[in-house]
Every structure is written in structure tokens, then in C-alpha cells.
């Protein structure tokens, strides 16, 4: 059954090694076709004669064999349902894996989709199709030969299985095998070997029943491309790049395009703190945001300074040749910048000479309306301003005109101003809430497709009942007065509380968490999907669940009056909230009531209510206050960030009303016990599993992070001490101004921005001292209380269950490495979920202000050189109010010459105009309105109302139209809150 072949390989590891590995060739690998009667088939047939596809190029039914280049370039076409009956050779699969992991992943998904009839043929281990590498043959040539060999074998093999008689009887043509390759050399050789062969482009075009497929073809070259003059200097070859990098003549780094100026960007290089500035089209040399590039530093006399100009590319049409005039414009811009920049401001400047690795992904955006009708060639404008426009070819331009679409870049040749790409799919009509949500989800890489059938198959069967066996295994807590307290409208209730007096005078407090890990068993598809999603994402008016709804809103949710499984953490505490003992166990509970924060508050405050629930709530509330005080004394920080809620219309999904999230006593009550549960569990699992416990830490920020806070407070006459969390907390408490009640909150908002991001980690990967959670002032912390919406909590549940013998361990749970990978993913997903949530709020703020103008109270958060940063507490909104700079003309914005001048005082950070002085934290009134001139980038405009400056402020009567002051909401509020708490 097996034959032995050996082959040699040489690898370079300092010195050349000869590596000999065995390579077994087999005769038991099936061809996977239902036509075949010879093969030993141990797998299910994947290639069937059912799905026939008509091609004008090949009249017979056929299977496809793909060359590596087809998979790499045309994955978007392959993902279409039309393409079926494909033989995937392992040679190709391995090549794809080496060349692009993202495409490999997508391709693998295709292969796993049983309905698509992709069959993996292990040609490398098949006796007949193995190609030994010949002397002087490159690896690439050998692979091409192996692919041809396999195609040939397949074709012959199928021919042999189909007897001419049968075919005649059924009146069908014989099934053939076709090789698709975009390599002309390979095609020629294949033809010589009498293999049916075609290029991917030709083949797709020959599928006349599916004309729209052509749009998805990736174009390396556009047809009838004007052989224009090269507009960009050539890139260095990979060899030259590596040599240059090695000799330190070139520097390597990730390219970051500027959001404001399309002709500017920077490359982050290790040695240079600020990165290397790149200016001008030729210096940028076709780099796209995110690419790993090689830079050559310019001589020092050619260095320049960042331009601080907002420069947006004007519309260019597909067939237009860039005019001389435009080029002149660009040069002028550069000259001006260089001349204006004083020597002190100049920073290292360079030019990009080559691309080490492209980081192209799929981009959301819209199609630019074309001047010429009936053209196939269009310009695509990405939503992300950092991405250049992309040329695409599509026949459905009219249909796509007002839609959000997705496009990928294929190539960027020297003689093309813009990169070439192709259309992938449409998201839906522009401005539609569903479409815009989709854009947010895509841009933040949030997995949001429906749960697959395989995932759903692991859900419990409905109707689901609790069996006797379950009761036997769990502690019965159905008689306890357990209740839950949540925000209104919450359907995924994952925590409930109880508190009762014990005969000895102490209190018993229990936190009951939904037992999600009971339903999600490790290792199955449901578990994997939840692990990869990592967290539930909350957008305004929409929730993207981590686990299917049956679990999140029904079986796991601890709704009132129904028996549910819970994981309980129960303490015995004395009246002073000292924990005397603790225990963990799985239980069955029956929540007596699911309340909102407000309802709970009402019960606590109403002395006439004396039932069990009221009593236990009051006890809990009392204990929580003690716990909170204790935590504060330990140095926990009270941070603030402006948070708002939108009231969304249930049908149109349009925001109706904005309200700031209110904090009641009951919020803090629930929070306190959740913290206590988290900390208790963290201590427990860290001792039980010293190597692999999932914990959460919040690193102490470096002192320089606090600089803006300390400065801002000093101007107000307050001393903020950042030595330790405790001192910081004290000094924040002292920052109170009688005449400005919002001052303390603003100081806390500033503090929040100095913080680092809290992260998940594995206990074995760090020293004990580093476990510290700075914001909570807890030596150890984890997440235990929200398993419905966070995967980390499910992990913690499993660890805890294993430690108390309620559940068995399994291999993955105890493995440090896989847990580390998991934490990495969870941290990434959490960050993205936060960003997506904020982007959604920003979007809804825009929707809310559509067609409205409002005067709002706000506060100056920062005073900048040419602007005021204004915070509007009512909307939790922050924006920039530009003041005119005294250096007019340098700025790209059109501005009216005016008689008033703002002077910036660097000493105490104030702006002065006549009698009016702006300090940080001063109250102002601004007028908000929406600028919809750019469909993709609507922006909120801030205009000053109070204090009134003649000629600058808008009149209180609303007849002022000249938009002198343009403010953008902070770039979708990402940057400012990056360093949020917890």
C-alpha cells in the first residue's frame, strides 16, 4: 500500500543543510468523482455531474483545476456560487498557504462548504501524480509541472471511466478536466501536453449565463490601457530592498497616510520617534495606508515640515489624463510648505523606494458618478480618507450609483495614477441605517454573519427542560429571593443577586451568573464561533450576539419567574461587609423578579415596601456602599467618560431622543457585587491554575501620559498628584470649583484619557506583581459575570468549574499557548467592539442632527493653537471650534479676511480676542449643525454663540450662513478614548 520515495531539500540556516525526508506515495487516494468506477473511494463524492455550467469555450461538462495564481488573484470570482466542481490540488493549496494567509483562509472556507463541490486531491502523495523535482528545475516550475501532471492524469482517468457506450446512450458529452491558469508559459506547455486549458479571464467571460461575474475579475492590466508615461518612479526589486535594508541605507516601516492631506503620510521607523515624513505624489510612490515600505531618507536640506493643510483630492474622471496644471498645483503646494517651514519645525523627510509587503484589504466606499455614460471604467471613492481612489471596471454602474460597495485593490502599475481594483459586492443603498451599520461592522472587522447551521446544531433541543439528573448535580436555590437588576430593555440578563440574613446575624450574599458554559461545550462549532467573535457588539438599536439568540435571550438569560441554571458565588459576610467565607457551586435558580435600575431604586427608597426583595435590596445596597468606600480608600479611581443613549424609533431605526446615561445608587450596587465576584473568582482560579488562568490586568500608565492632565489642572490652580492611584484619586476629589459644577467631571474625563487599555492575559505569562488592575486598585482581577456577552467569562467559568469538580477539564483549557492566542483575539475583538460602538454613536449623532440646528451648552476641554476643543455633555460629543489663525493664506481653507485676531498665549494656554479670553474648562454655547456636502463624510459644524464676539460668533437669531468655523467631530471619537478604563 505504500512505497517509499526520498527527496532532498536544502535549507539555509546559516550554513547549508541537506535534509532528507521520507515521502510516501499511495495508491489509495480517491479521485472524488461520482463518475469514477476504479478508485478506492473512502470519502464522499465531491465532484458530481449534477451541477453543470455552460461555457462557450468548452462545450462539454467539465471539472476545473486551478493554478495557484488563479486562486490568489481571483478568489472573489471563486467565491461565487456559480463555480462548482473544482479539483483542488494540494500543490496549489500549499502554495496559496505560503503566499497569502488571508486568501488561504477564504479558500479553505470554500473547500469546507460541501454544497460547492470543491474536492481536495492529494496529488503530492498519489503514486501517479507525484512529480519529483528535476535537477536545475526551480520549485515554481516543478509545481507547475505537478499541476499539469495531475490535470492530465485526472482527464485520462475520467476518460477511462466513461465508456463511449454509456455516453451515447445518455446523450451526454464526456466530462473533461480543464486547467485554469493565468500564467501564459504554463498555458503553452499545457496545450503542448494536450490538456484543455484557459485563462481565468477567458473562462469567466465564456460563462454567458453569468455576465456579472466579469466585474469580479481581478485585473492585472486594464484592457485598452493607454500606454501613458510612467507617473511614478519604479520600485526597487525585493533583492535590492533587502540589501539596502541590511546595509541600513534604507529604512523599513509601516506607512501611514495622512487623513487630511492625500499627498502626505509618514512611515513609522524605530529609530525616529515621530516617523519619517513623506510628501508629494512621487515620494509616496504608490504606497497605500498600512503597507510595509522601505524608505530612503532625503538629505537634510530637503527636509520639510508637516503641512497642516487639509487637502482633498478633487474629482478626477476615469479617462482623464492628469493635467500639467494639476501637477503644477501639487508642486506649488510642496514649495510653499517647504518655504514656510522654519528650520526648527523640519522633520526627517524621505521617499518611498519600494514595498516590502502590501497590506491591502477590502475597502468600503461609493462609486464616483461618471461623466461619460455607458462606460465600464469607473472611479471608486473609499470611505476611509487614507485610502486612494481605486479604478474599477463594472457593467452595473447605474445600479451601484447610490450604493455602498466593497472593492479590493489588485495592482498599482507605474503608469496609472490610481490603483486598479475590482468590485466585490454591494452592501446596500447609501444612507440606509442597515447599510451604514454594515459598514461600521466591516470596517471594525466584527464577524456578524448569521450563525451557520453547524453552529446552530449544537444548541439544545427545544422544548428544553431541566431533568432530574440536573437537579441532582446542582444546588437547589429556587426558594431564595433572587432578583436581577439591569438597564431597561435588557434581554440578555447574565447576573442576579440575593442577600439573606443568617441565624447567626451575618448576611449571606450570592451572585448568580448565567451558566453559559453548561450549554456551550468546549471544542464544538458553537464554542469556536463564540471564541472567534469574542464579545457581543452593541450598536445603537442593534446587537450582534456572540452566542445564538436562543441562548442569549432565552435559555441562559436569568429572566424572572423561570428556572434557570446558574453559576453561583456565595459569601458569608458580617454587617461590616467583611467576607468570612466564600463558596462556588453550580445551581438552579428561579429569579423572583427582573428589575430595571430605576425600579430597584424605587423599591429601596419606598419605606412602605417590606417584602423579602425590598429587604434584601436594602441590605445589598448598604453593603455595596461599604465595599465601595473600602475600594476608594484603596485607591480605585472614579473615572468618567461622556456616555449617552439614543432612543431609537422601533420602526425607522432613526434616533429620536438623546439622553445621558444616568447613574443611580443601584447601578453602583450591582457593579460593586460584580467586582467582588470577579475578584473572588480571580483569586481562586489564579491559585488553582497558576499557569493558565485567564485574568485581566490594567497596567499603570507611564507618568508622561498624565502631562496634559497635570498641566490643565495647574492652570486652574489645582495640584494633581499622580504618584499612585490612591493619591491621584484624592487629588481628583479635590478638583472642585463652586462656579463650575461640571469641572470635576471634565477633569475625570481627562484622566480617563491618560489611562492604558486593560487587557486579558494568562497567569503563567507574567509575574504576580504585574497582575495589578490600576483602575480598580485590585491586585488581581478577571471577568466572570457576563458570560453571555464575553467569551473570556466562559473560559473563567470553565476553569472555575474544573477547580470545584463540577465539570471536567479538557486539553485546550489547560494549555498556556492556545489560551494566550485566545486572549490575544479577545483583546482585539474587545477593542474593535468598543470602536464600532463609538462609530455607531457618531453615526447616530449625525442622523440626529440631520436638518436640525441647535444651540447647546458646552465646555472648553482644551485650548489649542488655532482652535478650541469643545465638549457638549448633553450629547457626550466633542468637537473642534477653529479660531482663525493669524497666518492666513498658509491654510488651505477659504477664509474671510477679518478684523479680529485671536492670540494664543502659550504660557497659560489661553486664547484672547479683544476682551474675551478662553481658558480651559470655560463654559461656552455653540451652535451645532450638520454639513452634508460630502455624502460619505458628513460632519458636525460647531459655531460659537456665547461668549459673543462680533463678526465671529453667530447671531443668536439664526440667519448666519457663512460657515466660518468648521468643526469636525473628532475622528469618529476613536483616538480620544483609546485609553479608556477597564
Amino acid at each position, binding site marked *: 500500500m*505504500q512505497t*517509499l520515495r*526520498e527527496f532532498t531539500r536544502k535549507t539555509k540556516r546559516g550554513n547549508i*543543510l*541537506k*535534509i*532528507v*525526508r*521520507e*515521502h*510516501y*506515495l*499511495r495508491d489509495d487516494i480517491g479521485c472524488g468523482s461520482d463518475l469514477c468506477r476504479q478508485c478506492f473511494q473512502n470519502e464522499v463524492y465531491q465532484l458530481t455531474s449534477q451541477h453543470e455550467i455552460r461555457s462557450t469555450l468548452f462545450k462539454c461538462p467539465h471539472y476545473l483545476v486551478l493554478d495557484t495564481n488563479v486562486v490568489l488573484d481571483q478568489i472573489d470570482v471563486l467565491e461565487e456560487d456559480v463555480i462548482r466542481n473544482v479539483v483542488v490540488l*494540494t500543490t496549489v493549496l500549499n502554495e496559496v498557504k505560503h503566499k497569502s494567509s488571508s486568501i488561504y483562509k477564504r479558500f479553505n472556507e470554500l473547500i469546507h462548504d460541501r454544497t460547492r463541490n470543491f474536492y*481536495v486531491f*492529494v496529488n*503530492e*502523495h498519489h503514486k501517479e501524480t507525484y512529480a519529483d523535482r528535476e535537477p536545475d528545475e526551480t520549485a515554481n516550475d516543478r509545481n507547475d509541472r505537478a499541476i499539469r501532471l495531475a490535470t492530465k492524469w485526472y482527464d485520462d482517468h475520467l476518460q477511462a471511466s466513461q465508456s463511449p457506450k454509456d455516453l451515447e446512450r445518455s446523450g451526454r458529452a464526456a466530462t473533461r478536466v480543464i486547467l485554469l491558469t493565468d500564467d501564459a508559459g504554463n498555458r503553452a506547455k499545457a496545450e503542448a501536453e494536450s490538456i484543455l486549458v484557459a485563462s481565468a479571464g477567458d473562462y469567466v467571460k465564456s460563462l454567458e449565463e453569468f455576465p456579472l461575474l466579469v466585474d469580479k475579475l481581478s485585473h492585472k492590466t486594464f484592457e485598452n490601457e493607454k500606454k501613458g508615461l510612467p507617473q511614478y518612479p519604479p520600485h526597487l526589486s525585493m533583492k535590492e530592498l533587502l540589501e539596502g535594508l541590511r546595509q541600513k541605507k534604507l529604512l523599513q516601516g509601516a506607512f501611514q497616510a495622512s487623513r487630511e492631506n492625500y499627498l502626505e503620510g509618514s512611515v513609522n521607523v524605530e529609530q525616529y520617534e515621530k516617523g519619517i515624513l513623506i510628501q508629494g505624489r512621487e515620494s509616496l510612490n504608490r504606497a497605500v495606508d498600512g503597507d510595509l515600505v522601505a524608505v530612503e531618507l532625503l538629505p537634510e536640506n530637503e527636509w520639510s515640515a508637516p503641512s497642516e493643510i487639509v487637502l482633498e483630492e478633487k474629482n478626477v474622471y476615469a479617462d482623464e489624463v492628469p493635467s500639467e496644471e494639476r501637477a503644477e498645483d501639487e508642486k506649488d503646494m510642496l514649495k510653499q510648505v517647504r518655504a514656510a517651514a522654519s528650520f526648527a519645525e523640519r522633520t526627517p523627510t524621505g521617499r518611498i523606494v519600494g514595498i516590502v509587503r502590501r497590506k491591502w484589504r477590502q475597502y468600503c466606499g461609493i462609486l464616483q458618478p461618471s461623466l461619460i455614460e455607458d462606460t465600464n471604467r469607473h472611479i471608486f471613492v473609499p470611505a476611509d480618507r487614507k485610502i486612494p481612489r481605486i479604478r474599477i471596471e463594472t457593467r452595473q454602474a447605474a445600479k451601484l450609483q447610490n450604493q455602498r460597495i466593497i472593492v479590493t485593490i489588485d495592482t498599482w502599475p507605474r503608469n496609472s495614477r490610481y490603483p486598479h481594483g475590482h468590485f466585490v459586492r454591494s452592501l446596500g443603498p447609501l444612507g440606509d441605517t442597515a447599510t451604514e451599520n454594515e459598514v461600521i461592522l466591516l470596517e471594525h472587522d466584527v464577524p456578524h454573519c448569521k450563525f451557520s447551521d453547524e453552529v446552530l446544531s449544537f444548541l439544545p433541543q427545544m422544548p428544553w427542560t431541566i431533568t432530574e439528573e440536573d437537579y441532582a448535580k446542582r444546588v437547589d436555590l429556587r426558594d431564595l429571593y433572587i432578583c436581577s437588576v439591569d438597564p431597561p430593555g435588557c434581554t440578555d440578563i447574565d447576573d442576579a443577586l440575593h442577600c439573606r440574613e443568617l441565624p447567626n446575624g451575618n448576611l449571606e450574599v450570592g451572585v448568580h451568573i448565567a451558566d453559559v458554559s453548561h450549554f456551550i461545550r468546549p471544542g464544538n462549532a458553537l464554542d469556536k464561533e463564540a471564541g472567534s467573535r469574542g464579545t457581543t457588539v452593541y450598536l445603537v438599536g442593534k446587537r450582534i450576539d456572540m452566542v445564538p439568540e436562543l441562548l442569549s435571550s432565552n435559555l441562559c438569560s436569568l429572566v424572572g419567574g423561570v428556572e434557570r441554571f446558574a453559576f453561583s458565588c456565595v459569601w458569608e459576610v458580617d454587617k461590616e461587609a467583611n467576607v468570612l467565607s466564600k463558596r462556588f457551586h453550580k445551581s438552579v435558580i428561579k429569579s423572583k423578579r427582573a428589575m430595571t435600575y430605576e425600579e430597584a431604586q424605587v423599591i429601596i427608597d419606598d419605606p412602605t415596601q417590606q417584602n423579602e426583595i425590598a429587604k434584601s435590596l436594602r441590605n445589598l445596597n448598604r453593603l455595596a456602599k461599604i465595599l465601595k468606600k473600602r475600594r476608594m480608600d484603596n485607591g480605585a479611581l472614579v473615572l468618567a467618560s461622556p456616555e449617552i443613549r439614543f432612543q431609537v424609533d422601533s420602526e425607522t431605526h432613526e434616533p429620536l431622543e438623546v439622553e445621558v446615561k444616568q447613574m443611580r445608587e443601584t447601578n453602583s450596587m450591582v457593579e460593586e457585587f460584580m467586582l467582588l465576584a470577579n475578584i473572588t473568582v480571580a483569586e481562586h482560579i489564579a491559585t488553582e491554575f497558576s499557569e493558565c488562568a485567564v485574568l485581566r490586568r490594567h497596567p499603570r500608565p507611564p507618568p508622561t501620559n498624565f502631562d496634559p492632565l497635570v498641566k490643565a489642572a495647574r492652570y486652574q490652580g489645582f495640584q494633581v498628584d499622580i504618584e499612585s492611584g490612591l493619591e491621584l484619586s484624592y487629588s481628583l476629589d479635590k478638583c472642585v470649583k463652586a462656579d463650575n459644577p461640571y469641572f470635576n467631571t471634565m477633569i475625570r474625563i481627562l484622566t480617563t484619557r491618560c489611562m492604558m487599555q486593560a487587557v486579558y492575559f494568562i497567569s503563567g505569562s507574567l509575574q504576580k506583581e504585574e497582575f495589578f488592575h490600576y483602575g480598580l486598585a485590585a491586585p488581581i482581577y478577571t471577568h466572570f459575570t457576563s458570560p453571555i456577552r464575553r467569551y473570556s467569562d466562559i473560559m473563567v467559568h470553565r476553569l472555575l468549574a474544573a477547580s470545584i469538580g463540577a465539570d*471536567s*477539564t*479538557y*486539553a485546550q483549557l*489547560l*494549555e*498556556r*499557548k492556545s489560551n494566550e492566542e485566545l486572549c490575544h483575539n479577545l483583546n482585539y475583538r474587545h477593542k474593535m467592539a468598543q470602536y464600532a460602538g463609538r462609530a455607531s454613536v457618531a453615526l447616530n449623532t449625525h442622523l440626529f442632527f440631520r436638518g436640525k440646528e441647535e444651540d447647546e451648552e458646552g465646555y472648553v476641554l482644551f485650548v489649542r493653537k488655532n482652535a478650541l476643543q469643545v465638549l457638549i455633555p448633553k450629547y457626550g460629543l466633542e468637537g473642534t471650534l477653529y479660531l482663525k489663525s493669524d497666518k492666513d493664506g498658509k491654510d488651505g481653507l477659504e477664509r474671510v479676511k477679518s478684523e479680529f485676531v485671536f492670540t494664543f498665549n502659550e504660557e497659560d494656554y489661553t486664547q484672547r480676542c479683544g476682551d474675551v479670553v478662553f481658558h480651559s474648562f470655560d463654559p461656552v454655547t455653540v451652535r451645532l449643525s450638520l454639513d452634508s456636502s460630502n455624502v460619505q463624510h458628513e460632519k458636525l459644524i460647531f459655531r460659537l454663540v456665547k461668549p459673543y464676539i462680533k463678526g465671529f460668533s453667530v447671531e443668536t437669531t439664526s440667519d448666519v450662513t457663512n460657515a466660518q468655523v468648521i468643526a469636525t467631530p473628532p475622528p469618529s471619537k476613536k483616538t480620544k478614548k483609546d485609553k479608556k478604563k477597564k
Partner: protein
Amino acid sequence: MASNFELLSEQGLRLDGRRPHELRHIKCKLGVFEQPDGSAYMEQGNTKVLAAVYGPHQAKGKKTESNDVIINCQYSQATFSTAERKNRPRGDRKSLEFKMYLQQALSAAIKSELYPRSQIDIYVEVLQADGANYAVALNAATLALIDAGICLNEFIVACTASLSKSNIPLTDISHFEEVSGGPKLTVAALPTAEKIAFLEMSERFHIDHLETVIETAMAGCREIRDILEAAVKEHLLHMGSAADWARVC
């Protein structure tokens, strides 16, 4: 089990094209040298081992005091056995460790009560190392002992096993699979008696899988035993044909 590398493809083939339960190709020969009392050559895939046995002979020096048989092993790897040239063919930690393991496993198989106050020397040289070195060395030593006519309770054979990421046990690990990061379990057993004489494990995996992995290794041992037995019979036929008692068996 810190494997970053999938040891088993989705098509159910291992890195070198074997299926999970398949051994590598085994070749063996008894009586390759004239000088020693017994010798054997064994190839398991690309792992190639020579073994020679001297004895039983009278124990030397202090060791004569003891009534038991003294089993003296030496394990060495040829300088050219690995991809990178080995500088110390003998006496490094790994070799000393393997030597101990060999003694431990072999003493379980040799009928020691038949050889009081005597010594048996077993020399093993690995000519080419391509995974499961210890297991192949032990198998070669078994053959050499048989060739030397030393009484054994039973064939003692060794086999390795690993576990793929998808938790399917794999038999007879090659060097490539070892360095790709799978766990490795070596079992030396007396297959008929179903006794394990020696068990070694590198890298951890979950205890739930231990049983199946050991069973896989045991199955490998049984298969190797059958191959060795056939080789021994073949060898005897060949030897016997000179003395004309081949027809007797």
C-alpha cells in the same frame, strides 16, 4: 502540546503521506557482523541503527559479587547521523539517558535468572537519526539479543505515538513530526504479555487522551513485533538451510 503545526491534514494524511495508524517502512537483518555474538541492523523509515551483543560472559571487577546478570548498554549516534554534524557521538546527556532507558527496558525482557554472575554487553549505534531513535535502537537491540541466542521472556519492542491537533493519535513519529511540535510518547512493551516495560513522554497533553495514545503505541508495538518475528524466522530459515534443518521447521 504547543504544536503550531498541524500534523494531520484534513484529508487524513500526515506530513510524509502516511495515515495516522501507519508505521514507517521497516527493514531489518540479523547477523550482520561476525565478531560479536549477536548483531542486527534495523531501518525504520530513515532511522537506521546497528546493534551488537557480546556475551553472556563472566562479569568483570567488582560486579562479580552480584548474583544477577549485569546488562551493560552503550548508545551512540554517528557524527553524520543528523543534518547538522554531531560533535560528540558518545557520552552526552542524551546518550547517557538513552543508555539508562535501554538497560531498564532490556532487563525486563532478559531471563536474568539464567545468567547469574555474568554480563551482557549491548552496543547500539545510530547511523542515521530521523525520529524515534530510542525505539528503533531498542528494537535493533532485541534482534541482536535474539541473534546472540540470549533467552528472552518475549520480544521487547518499542514504538512512539503522538497526538494531532484534532486529537487523533499518530503512530511512529518521524523527526519532522517531532520538531513540528507534537507531543511524543515512547512505549517499550512486551506485547503478548501486554506489559509496559518503559514509558516516556515529552511535552504535555491532556490526560483524557493518554489512554488512546498509549493504546496506539501498543498497537504499533504489536505490529513491529510481527515484523521482527517474521524477520527472525526468515533469518533462521536462512541459517538452517546450511545445516539442512530448514525443512524441519
